[in-house]
């Protein structure tokens, strides 16, 4: 019953956003019904629609979880985008430099690199917040730009194939590749880039759930988020929780590298992210900062990303930017839900 109630408001927000989107489609001169039929139909076709929807949902599960974990500690991590970029570059770097290593060693090493780099990139704003009180929203925004610039610098000056007009690194070693689902499951064509990062994302959801709700550390993080003063009074070192939550958040965002670098492009590719870090905010909000909600919201946004491409091609006036509009409106509606709740409750519910 309470599960259904939890579902009600997000569904209403999505429905309202689709209504606004329909008005926009009408305004630019197309039929909302046809546009939405195209959007949903192309996202749910078998096997390509569903395969690509799950593929696009994978990075969103990671970034949505990342934002949710920080939210639970009362922090807004707008830096998932930078964390995933720097992690993707570092992961590709390990895959390039250690290309000759055996797969059983190289793949875990690459995944560890993704976790550590993303975690470190988020730990910096965490420390700045805990130690100096610097607002994490501003520092993570700044860290985003620094990450993108650094990755682009190293790519351009050190790891680009000579003469390549595209800003990307040389390929990683084949031993660093993560298998595509199509290679393992009969009936799914291998051209669909859905790979083992997807089950990894589901496992991450389970682990985050167990960590936050079944361990003392998770409890301390949630207590810090719910009421920092009370947590401090209760003997919790809130500064430590902030650094821990940010590191964990960044590590989760870093795992996007597994999907994009190890499982799809097999190299670092400049501006590869379709705003996954920012969509992660929408995913976390819509999913009520809960792992199950994050999965559901990621599937929705993954379907929109997939369907958007078809809307772009097969409608006369509507471009795939409709997806961005829907996303923005959904966030606005979910944010304005605060009308019904107090500020403390809105970010973090009961511990």
């Amino acid at each position, binding site marked *: 019953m309470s599960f259904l109630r939890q579902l009600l408001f997000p569904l209403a927000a999505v429905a309202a956003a689709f209504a606004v989107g329909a008005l926009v489609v009408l305004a630019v001169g197309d039929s909302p019904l046809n546009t939405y039929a195209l959007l949903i139909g192309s996202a749910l076709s078998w096997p390509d629609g569903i395969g690509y929807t799950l593929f696009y949902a994978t990075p969103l599960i990671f970034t949505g979880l990342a934002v949710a974990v920080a939210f639970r500690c009362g922090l807004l991590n707008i830096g998932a985008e930078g964390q995933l970029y720097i992690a993707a570059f570092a992961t590709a770097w390990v895959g390039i430099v250690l290309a000759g290593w055996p797969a059983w060693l190289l793949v875990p090493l690459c995944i560890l690199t993704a976790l550590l780099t993303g975690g470190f990139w988020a730990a910096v704003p965490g420390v700045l917040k805990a130690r100096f009180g*610097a607002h994490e929203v501003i520092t993570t925004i700044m860290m985003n730009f620094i990450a993108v610039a650094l990755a682009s610098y190293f790519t351009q000056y050190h790891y680009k194939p000579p003469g390549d007009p595209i800003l990307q690194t040389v390929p990683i070693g084949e031993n660093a590749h993560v298998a595509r689902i199509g290679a393992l499951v009969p009936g799914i064509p291998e051209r669909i880039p859905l790979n083992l990062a997807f089950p990894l994302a589901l496992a991450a959801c389970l682990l985050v759930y167990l960590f936050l709700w079944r361990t003392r550390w998770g409890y301390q993080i949630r207590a810090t988020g719910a009421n920092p003063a009370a947590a401090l009074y209760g003997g919790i070192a809130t500064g430590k929780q902030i650094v821990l939550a940010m590191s964990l958040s960044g590590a989760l965002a870093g795992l996007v590298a597994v999907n994009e670098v190890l499982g799809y492009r097999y190299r670092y590719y400049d501006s590869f992210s379709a705003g996954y870090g*920012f969509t992660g905010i929408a995913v976390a909000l819509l999913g009520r900062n809960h792992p199950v909600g994050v999965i559901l919201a990621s599937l929705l946004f993954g379907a929109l990303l997939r369907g958007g491409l078809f809307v772009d091609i097969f409608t006369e006036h509507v471009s795939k930017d409709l997806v961005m509009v829907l*996303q923005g409106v959904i966030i606005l509606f979910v944010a304005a839900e605060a009308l019904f709740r107090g500020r403390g409750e809105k970010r973090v519910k009961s511990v």
Partner: protein
Amino acid sequence: MSILLILLASAVRQATPLLLAALGGLYSERSGVINIALEGLMLAGAFTAASVTHYSGSPWLGLAAGIAAGVLVALVHGVACIRFKADQVVSGTAINILFLGVPALLSGALFQSTGATPQVPQEQLLPIAPIVLAFLLVPVTWYVLNRTPFGLRLRAVGENPEAADTAGVNVARVRLAAVLLSGALAAIGGAYLSIGQSSLFARNMTAGRGFIALAALIFGKWRPVQTMLACLLFGFAEALAIQMEGVSQVPVQFIQIVPYVLTIIVLAGFIGHSRAPRALGVPYQEKR
């Protein structure tokens, strides 16, 4: 010498959109409302100004329409944050995402290109006026903040809304006015980009300038003159990056990250502490 002059002139031009947006952000944030939507507001202003100038042939009409668009979008942010007590950062993020999409969508429908609007002829551009306006607004903003009743109320609701409320100030109204003002100024900054510096609106043409403006605002400790100096510094870095592109051995990326690194250092308190308005980000619940 002439290189330096070219560089300085370029720095002033680069600083202009930053300064307009940063001053806009200053009004909003000094009243207690976080405005990370500056990027989206600039995009709304830039796109509207370019489109209306294309249709009407008048850059002034374009500018006015751009300002109207900025105010309208700021109204959404203001109503969400003030009336509905939405999280200000989340609402700002929503607007930034929304206005990455809206201009491209409209541009695709109006001009059959999601990448850019049609070119505006050279004689219909606004090269000087926004620059003059931006720098004139620095003393004006200082005066408004420190010497007028509106400025006093603005600072009061940003520092201590309870006290202001008790003294009879309508907190919500002052904050909304400040947010709308920030929309107008950021939109002028955006319009300068599309129909001043260049002659069309290109997809995501602000390229993070809204965030650099925010950085300048924090680097300038939420004060008009210091904010201007920060904008000039960041504008200089940008001008340097443009001049050095392809010429120097120093990678352009290293110059680009200067504003961001400096802002983090300032926030950490290594170069003087930057203190935010006390009630920044806290929605206010009227007591009556």
